[in-house]
């Protein structure tokens, strides 16, 4: 995998707030917001995979959707190849859709149950006018084989396929337009364990063959470890740590990352008792003051933890971390 160093995707000061209430009237009375994503910044160099990890309420899915431009930011920017994607519309937006694609989590929901695989994979080809009528059939077969499905699947409906097969169709659809950047939103979470490895292998093979850049969103650190070059850890709308994969696991910096690693069960009965992280994940409507993690943090150092939000610090080994523990160690 080559990396020319120029970030393909850049996220700067990104925020996404949702109104806490459903309709406009209630919104007038209750102006509180769900701060799903609250000022995050990171970049993804071409040809690499950035893993985005977090539990529920962390904002990782919303981040994925913001980068996919399925929703617009409340503040901040998403840049693709240096260009802000927020103001794009019409022709330009359509062009963006050729470069940026998404693989969804739930293979039952991401396929239209009344359409065959052929119809679904054909759609992006048709909309972007990429293939002539004569070549369509062969292109569809080619795409199916690329994801490991025989052409027999072309005229099957989703309910005539297993979960893993449906996910492959979703991947074929995403790759039909030959994108450069693919956002994988929990692509194996909804699949059976014995199929997960197959799909992960497929995604990695395709990245090599087609020179893709991935944003890999997941809640399972062991899966993310396997596919990512760098990993960003999110908690309650904020990024708490970004580091390359090896360093993150060998030397996690942020207390949340450390707690997460300790809480994950190992498939090894002799791995000893897990460290329990107490408390519930707080609500994104009313996040804790100062550092969001402070109520559950086993390594609090004092008042500063609940008074001031920690700055993002770059450590000598290249890790970004947002924690008062490291104030003064980096820039």
């Amino acid at each position, binding site marked *: 995998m080559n990396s020319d160093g120029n970030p393909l995707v850049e996220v700067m000061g990104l925020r996404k707030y949702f109104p806490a209430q459903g*309709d*406009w009237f209630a919104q007038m009375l209750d102006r509180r917001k769900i701060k799903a994503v609250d000022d995050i910044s990171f970049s993804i160099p071409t040809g690499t995979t950035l893993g985005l990890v977090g539990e529920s309420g962390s904002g990782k899915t919303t981040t994925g*959707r913001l980068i*996919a431009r*399925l929703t617009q930011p409340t503040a901040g920017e998403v840049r693709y190849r240096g260009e802000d994607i927020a103001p794009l519309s019409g022709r330009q937006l*359509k062009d963006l*859709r*050729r470069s*940026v*694609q*998404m693989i*969804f*989590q*739930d293979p039952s*929901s*991401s*396929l*239209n*149950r*009344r*359409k065959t695989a052929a119809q*679904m994979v054909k*759609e*992006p080809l048709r*909309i*972007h006018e*990429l293939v002539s009528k004569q070549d369509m059939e062969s292109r569809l077969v*080619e795409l199916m*084989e*690329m994801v*490991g*499905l*025989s052409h*027999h*699947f072309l005229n*099957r*409906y989703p*309910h*005539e*396929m*297993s979960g893993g*097969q449906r996910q*492959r169709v*979703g991947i074929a*659809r*995403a790759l039909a*337009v*030959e994108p450069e950047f693919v956002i994988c939103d929990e692509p194996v979470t909804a699949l059976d364990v014995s199929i997960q490895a197959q799909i992960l292998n497929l995604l990695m093979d395709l990245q090599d*063959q*087609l020179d893709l850049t991935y944003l890999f969103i997941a809640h399972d650190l062991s899966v993310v470890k396997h596919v990512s070059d760098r990993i960003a850890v999110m908690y309650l709308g904020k990024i708490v740590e970004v580091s390359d994969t090896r360093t993150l696991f060998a030397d996690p910096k942020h207390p949340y990352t450390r707690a997460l690693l300790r809480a994950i069960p190992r498939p090894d009965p002799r791995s000893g008792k897990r460290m329990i992280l107490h408390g519930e994940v707080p609500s994104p409507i009313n996040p804790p003051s100062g550092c969001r993690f402070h109520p559950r943090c086993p390594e609090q150092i004092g008042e500063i933890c609940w008074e001031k939000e920690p700055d993002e610090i770059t450590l000598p080994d290249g890790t970004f971390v947002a924690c008062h523990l490291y104030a003064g160690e980096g820039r």
Partner: protein
Amino acid sequence: MSTPDVAVHPSDVITPTVKKHRGLLEEVWHNFRKNRLSLTGGVIVVMAIIIAVFAPLLAPYNPVEQFSAPLGQHHPLPPLSRSEEGTLFLLGSDKFGRDILSRAFYGCRTLLQLATGSITIAFALGVLMGGVAGYRKGSWVDELIMRIVDIMLSFPSLVLAIALVGAFGIGRTQIGPFSLSNMFKIAIVIAITYSPAFARVMRGVVLQETAEDYVDAAKMSGGSGWQILAGEIFVNTIPPLIVQASLNMATTVLTSASLSFLGLGLQPPRPSLGIMLNEARDYLFGGAWWYALVPGTFILLIILGFNLLGDGLRDSLDPRQARRTRL
């Protein structure tokens, strides 16, 4: 477009292991067949349609032709009696000497024409309104459309229909180059009355479907709003809409008959079941029981048929029945 060098080993390519299931249509038909009531409904509706379509062939006599009563008797004559001219009134004659059976057949025809026409227009209007409102949930468009729908729904449908007829007037009207027949105007009136129901259903389904990922996937494929609504979402809205249409046929029939009964619908001498009922009012207790019973029964059966059919369709389209046991 360069084809990437993909190494595909034949053993790597998966062939289908899951059984091919019945198609949607077969599945629906299969479920439908099992239900006795819905089959009955279906049979009734089919018979009504046959009568309506082939009325000119099936009706023994001209519905507006008046026959003379035999000496000493006067119309309305009871069933199985004969006129002076020898016509056999299988179901009796009306007060003008017309054959009730023939009039009933033709009445059935006009009723179904009206109902079908108005349902089609209501469907189109409702789907459009509901689709736009649902896809643009939360926007002012959504609010505007749904408040209009709410206003319309707050009127009892018959009252609304009467008001609209009052506004449009009875009889043929001329609007610029268009000459609208009375029947067409009534169809529009009824369509307007029932389109809110379709709009509601459509919006509900659209809301459900937009929550699914395939809609997002369609956006990622580059589709525009209209492309997605028409190309992806619509096909999923058809089952509940068909159920709604079938159930609404029943109420549409009732409304048309009611309008005719009140004299606000189709005008005589056009054969209409509603008008027949109106004429029969004087004879309800006067002995000519067949005069009201025949049109009344026809209306009853048609409405019953559509209701049963609609219920049956709803049950057989129910995805819960089609779903397999989760293990």
